C-alpha cells in the first residue's frame, strides 16, 4: 500500500437526527436469558464475551429467564416498582416546579429509574455510593426524606446544604450518598479511594461508583480503572450508557463499535454489560458484583445500557439534536412498564394497584413539596443566611473570612 490518498478525519455521528429515525442496530443486544453467568471469582479476562453481549432477564412477555433470573423476594420487587414510580413522578413534579420558577434548575432521570433502584437494593447499609447528578433513584431506594431533597432543590431556609449547591447536587452521608460535584468523573476515582480505605482498615463495606457514557472520556475514568485494578479495590464501577451526553451521541465518547464494558476487561477488571431497563437484570448483576467485591475478589465494571428519555436538564431541548420520538423506538423499552408486566404476570401487581400507587405517590410528593415550600423558595427569597456563606470553607473560620463576613455586614 504505497498509494496515499488525502487523509480524512472521522467524526462519529448518530444515525438519528431531528426529523429522521435512529437506527438502533448499533446497540449490541442479546436475547433475554442468553448470556452466561460466571462464578464471582471469574478471571477478568474471561468476561470479555459478556462485556460485548447484554445480560437480560425479562423477555418481551415479562417472563424472567436464564441464568441471571434469581428468586427475588416479592416485597423487594414491589418496593422496587414503587421506588421507580416515585422517582419518575418526583422528577415530573420538580420539572413543573422549575417551570414555575420555584427552583432554578432540575435534571430528570426519565427512563433510567431501574438502575439506581435495583442496584441500591443489592447493596447493604454502610456501603457508599459515589453518584452523578442522575442517580436520584438511589436516594429514593434508600427512602431519603423527600422534604429534605426538595428543600435542597429550592435552596431554602431548610436546605441541608445551606443554599451553597446547585439543585440536584445532593449530599446524604447517612444514606451512603456521597456529595455530588459539578465536575464530571471526579467521583469515579474518589469511590476507588474510599474502597481502598475500606480495604486498608479491614472493613467489609464496599463502594459503588457512578459515571455516564460521556464522562468516560474524562481522564478520571481511566484513572479509576487503573487504581481499582492495581489495588483490587472493593468497588463496583457503574457506567450508565444512556446514549447521550447532552447533545453528543455516545459514539463521540468512544462508544463507536466498542462497548464501555470492554474498557473494564482491557484494564483487567471483570466486566458485565447489562440491560439497564431490566430491573431483574440490574438487581442480579449488582448483587453479583457486590458479592465479588465483598469477598475481596476485586472490582467489577458494569455498563448499564439504557436511554436518556428526557432532556439532559431543564436547560436543554433535545429536539434540536435527536428525534423527538426516539425513546419509543429504543429496543429496551421502559423499565417501569417492563417490571409492571412481569409483576402482573406473577400476580404481584395490578392495574388497580398501579393506579392507586400513582395517586398515592403524587399526593405524597405534592404534600412534601408543600411542606418544603413552607421553608421558603429561591424565588421568594427565604434562603439560608448570607452569613452562613462563609462557614465550612475551613473547619474553623479563618480571620480573613471573618473580616469579609463583617464587610458584608452580616
Amino acid at each position, binding site marked *: 500500500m504505497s498509494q496515499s490518498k488525502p487523509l480524512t478525519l472521522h467524526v462519529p455521528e448518530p444515525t438519528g437526527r431531528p426529523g429522521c429515525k435512529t437506527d438502533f442496530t448499533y446497540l449490541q443486544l442479546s436475547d433475554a436469558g442468553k448470556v452466561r453467568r460466571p462464578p464471582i471469582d471469574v478471571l477478568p479476562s474471561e468476561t470479555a464475551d459478556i462485556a460485548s453481549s447484554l445480560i437480560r432477564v425479562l423477555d418481551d412477555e415479562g417472563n424472567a429467564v436464564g441464568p441471571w433470573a434469581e428468586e427475588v423476594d416479592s416485597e423487594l420487587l414491589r418496593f422496587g416498582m414503587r421506588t421507580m414510580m416515585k422517582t419518575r413522578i418526583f422528577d415530573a413534579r420538580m420539572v413543573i416546579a422549575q417551570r414555575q420558577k420555584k427552583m432554578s434548575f432540575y435534571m430528570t432521570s426519565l427512563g433510567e429509574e431501574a438502575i439506581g433502584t435495583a442496584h441500591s437494593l443489592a447493596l447493604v447499609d454502610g456501603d457508599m455510593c459515589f453518584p452523578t447528578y442522575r442517580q436520584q433513584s438511589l436516594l429514593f431506594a434508600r427512602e431519603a426524606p423527600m422534604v429534605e431533597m426538595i428543600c435542597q432543590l429550592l435552596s431554602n431556609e431548610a436546605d441541608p446544604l445551606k443554599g451553597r449547591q446547585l439543585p440536584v447536587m445532593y449530599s446524604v452521608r447517612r444514606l451512603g450518598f456521597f456529595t455530588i460535584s459539578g465536575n464530571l468523573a471526579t467521583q469515579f476515582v474518589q469511590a476507588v479511594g474510599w474502597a481502598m480505605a475500606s480495604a486498608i482498615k479491614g472493613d467489609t463495606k464496599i463502594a459503588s461508583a457512578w459515571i455516564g457514557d460521556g464522562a468516560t472520556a474524562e481522564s478520571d475514568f481511566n484513572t*479509576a480503572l487503573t*487504581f481499582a485494578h492495581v489495588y483490587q479495590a472493593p468497588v463496583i464501577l457503574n457506567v450508565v450508557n444512556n446514549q447521550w451526553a447532552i447533545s453528543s451521541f455516545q459514539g463521540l465518547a468512544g462508544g463507536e463499535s466498542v462497548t464501555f464494558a470492554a474498557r473494564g476487561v482491557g484494564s483487567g477488571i471483570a466486566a458485565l454489560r447489562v440491560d439497564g431497563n431490566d430491573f431483574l437484570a440490574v438487581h442480579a448483576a449488582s448483587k453479583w458484583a457486590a458479592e465479588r467485591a465483598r469477598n475481596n475478589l476485586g472490582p467489577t465494571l458494569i455498563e448499564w445500557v439504557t436511554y436518556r428519555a428526557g432532556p439532559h436538564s431543564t436547560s436543554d431541548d433535545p429536539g434540536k439534536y435527536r428525534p423527538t420520538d426516539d425513546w419509543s423506538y429504543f429496543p429496551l423499552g421502559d423499565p417501569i412498564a417492563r417490571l409492571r408486566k412481569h409483576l402482573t404476570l406473577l400476580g404481584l401487581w395490578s392495574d388497580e394497584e398501579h393506579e392507586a400507587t400513582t395517586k398515592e405517590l403524587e399526593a405524597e410528593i405534592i404534600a412534601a413539596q408543600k411542606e418544603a415550600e413552607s421553608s421558603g423558595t429561591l424565588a421568594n427569597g427565604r434562603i439560608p443566611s448570607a452569613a452562613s456563606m462563609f462557614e465550612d470553607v475551613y473547619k474553623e473560620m479563618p480571620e480573613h473570612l471573618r473580616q469579609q463576613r463583617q464587610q458584608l455586614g452580616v
Partner: protein
Amino acid sequence: MKNAVTAPMTMIQALRSAMDVMLERDNNVVVFGQDVGYFGGVFRCTDGLQAKYGRSRVFDAPISEGGIVGTAVGMAAYGLRPVVEIQFADYFYPASDQIVSEAARLRYRSAGEFTASMVIRMPCGGGIYGGQTHSQSPEAMFTHVCGLRTVMPSNPYDAKGLLIASIENDDPVIFLEPKRLYNGPFDGHHDQPVVPWSKHPMGEVPEGYYTVPLDKASVFRPGTELTVITYGTMVFVSEAAAKETGIDCEIIDLRTLWPLDLDTIVASVKKTGRCVVVHEATRTSGFGAELAALVQEHCFYELEAPIERVTGWDTPYPHAQEWAYFPGPDRVGAAFKRAMEA
C-alpha cells in the same frame, strides 16, 4: 520543645520523622505516592516507612497525580488521613481538578458532611539546575483556591513540626518542600560550598512528637530598618542579602502562606516602614502580589517607600540561565537598598 531528645536531621530526615511519628500515633494516617513505598521516595523522604508500617499504610502508586489525589479524597471521605506525595510540584497540574474542585470544596459543598483531611506533599523550588519541570514554585496556584491551606517550611525543625500539624489539621493542606533546602540551607551563593543541616542550629530536631502551628509566621531575623516577607529558600537568601548590605532587616518567614499570619507582618511593617517581598515564583499574579496588596492596605500610613518585590522572572524556569533567573542575594540586596533609599 524544651528538654526533648533531639537529633541532627536534614529536612529530608525531619519530614520522614514527621510521617513516622504520625503513622505511629494515628492508624488512619496512610502515606502513598509514586516511588514512595519500597524505594522510599526519590528524595528518600519516606525511606524505611513501608518496612516499618507495612504495605497497607505506606505504598507505591501508579504515575497518576489525578489518581493519587482523587483516591486520597475518597480515603479522607471514608475517614483516613492520607499524606500523599506528588514527586515534583511541577507535576501537580494533572491533579488540579481533584485539588481545586474536590479536596478544597468537599467540606463546603456538603455542609460539613464530608471532609478532606489530607496533606499533599510536593517538592518545589529551583536552584538545582532542575530546568523547567523540576524547579517551579506554584504556590500562587493554591493560595488562590478557597478551602486550601498552603504551607512551606524553610528548615528541618519547622518542616517536621509543620508537617505533623498539617497531618493533624482537618483541612486539606498543600505542603510545599523546597528541595534546594533538603540537605542544607542555601543562601543563593551557588559558587560556595553548601553547609549541611548538621552545622546549622535549625538542623537540631526533637525525635518525638511536636507541632509548629500552621497559622503563625516566624521572625527569622529581628530587625528595625526594613521588613522582608518571604518563605522557603528565599529566607536564607534574604538573610545573606541583609548581611551583605548591612541593612538591619526584619526577615519574616511566613511558613504558612495561606491563611497567613497577618498580625506579624503588619506589626513589623508598621515598625520599619519599609517592605520587600521575596519569592522564587514568577512575578505577575504571584503570591507576592497578594502580600504587597495586604501590606499596602494595612500599613499605608506607615510606609516610607514603595513595596518592592524580588521574584523569579515572568519566564519558564530555564536551565542554563539558572543563576540569572534565581533571585540571588545580589538582586535581593539591591532591592533592599532601593527600599532604604526611597
